[in-house]
């Protein structure tokens, strides 16, 4: 083979590899960035973030994966994303609707509420008829091992924020869980949990995740939705206020 032919072959091989790398980068990175971010603006020095976690989701690719949703503050619509932004140095009031059934924590230490104002959460639990069987219980611990009442956690390790998310009780988890996402409070058992924390004073991106682990269908529950943005893994973008 002549030197020219070899040089052309080498160049062609390089272009093929570079093209593949570019495609992969655009496909994955571009795909991730296509996920919408819900922006929360402060009002009166506070911001109200509303989330829900469902036993399934309305995606076409992974409809059986457990998933978070974020409520758009303007339209009140539920957005299938785990990216949201809050202003820096602001009190963040979170309302979290837990529709998924109970799962014991692998490390029951995370039954303890940490990093919220007062290190507490307040939760209520409702059956599918809307009957409230636990009302506004403020607590530092929701023991995931003593009863069937924790579905997942909402944790931002970078902020030291660890919150167990209450779930419907055992009987309701067994028989009546919400089966169509995004779930609604009508006709479904659920838990409603509220807590507050102060966002960091400086801008930055903070990862949040579930610590159950909750990847149904994967070994020991690892992988799958537990590690995937848009499902049980998310990012809170703290923006300069």
């Amino acid at each position, binding site marked *: 083979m002549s030197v020219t032919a070899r040089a052309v072959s080498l160049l062609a091989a390089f272009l093929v590899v570079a093209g593949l790398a570019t495609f992969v980068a655009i496909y994955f990175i571009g795909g991730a960035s296509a996920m919408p971010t819900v922006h929360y603006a402060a009002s009166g020095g506070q911001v109200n973030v509303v989330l829900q976690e469902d036993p399934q989701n309305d995606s076409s690719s992974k409809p059986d994966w*457990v998933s978070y949703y974020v409520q758009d503050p303007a339209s009140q619509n539920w957005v299938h994303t785990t990216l949201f932004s809050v202003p820096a140095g602001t009190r963040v009031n979170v309302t979290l609707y837990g529709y998924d059934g109970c799962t014991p924590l692998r490390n029951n230490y995370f039954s303890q509420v940490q990093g919220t104002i007062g290190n507490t959460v307040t939760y209520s639990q409702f059956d599918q008829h809307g009957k409230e069987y636990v009302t506004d219980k403020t607590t530092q611990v929701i023991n995931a091992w003593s009863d*069937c009442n924790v579905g997942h956690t909402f944790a931002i390790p970078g902020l030291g924020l660890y919150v167990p998310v209450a779930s419907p009780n055992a009987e309701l988890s067994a028989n009546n869980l919400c089966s169509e996402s995004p779930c609604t409070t009508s006709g479904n058992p659920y838990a409603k949990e509220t807590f507050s924390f102060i966002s960091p004073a400086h801008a930055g991106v903070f990862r949040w995740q579930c610590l159950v682990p909750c990847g149904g269908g994967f070994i020991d529950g690892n992988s799958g939705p537990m590690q995937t943005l848009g499902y049980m893994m998310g990012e809170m973008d703290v923006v300069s206020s």
Partner: protein
Amino acid sequence: MSAAEPPAPSPAPSSAGPRHGRRLFVIWLVLSLAACLLIWFVWKPHLPPGTMSDAARHQQFDIAVLAVSAAPVVIFVLLYFVYAIVVWRARPGDDSDGEPTYGNTKIQATWIVGTTIIVLWLFVFGTVELVVPAGAGAGQGPAPIWKLDGATSSTWTPNTNTMLEVQVIGQQWTWTYRYPQFGGMESSELLLPVNTPVEFHVTSLDVIHSFWAYQLGVKADANPQVDNVAYVTAKALGSVTVRCNELCGIWHGAMYNYGHVVPPTEFQSWARGVQAKEQANGILAALPPYALTYDPTVIPQMGKNLIKIDGITGAAGYYYPPSDPVTP
């Protein structure tokens, strides 16, 4: 000159020519001395992981000693390379071959003796540096060979030589720390007392992680159901970065937090405070009994009413199973 004529004999080496060996040796000696002095006095103070603990200080010392050991060798190779190119290069018009050589006992003996000394030195030095700092901050498994001096006790008091036990628990993707001498309280924050022997018991709840307390020079794998012991004595106050050093999933790079080395009395105050808080809010009673591995399957032993629910998707009220996955 005709083709039939025999080649002219090579000229005999001139006794007035340069003595390459001596010249090379002198240049090498000067360069090596300069490099070793620079490494030891200029570079060493900035070498990782610093001097925050005995283990870290030994690691910094090891890197510097190895650099000082390697520098003369590297300089010799490069010097000989450059010298040959400059001094023994072919001159314009000189198409003659080099002088054939058939062995040189002096060179061979020098080579064998020199490399033997270097290898033996590295063997002895490496062994001593593993043994003297009690395992050099590395995980030694459940039955450590080299233990740090310190009394073992079920309680810990400041300013004594009592070993502080800290269980390090990794899970995707965060670290927690358990202190058996303080009622088995657990914390997401690592605090250590200065000038106190510490015995880490490193384990994992799920996949393989690696506990890397960078400034302390401690690195130990965190394996599920395994107690991996590592020792350290922090010698200075300050912050410690804790990272996972074993690829443990897609968010491995985000698995880090920070620890702090504080005065012993401040540590005791903090530990007692966390213990009291966890006793008061009930989480301490909700944790499994302290054990050298962190086994969540002890829940039934605690008499807890853990309910396994059949017939629903997901975890069905219990742990997701370790069986082969059926991806939804």
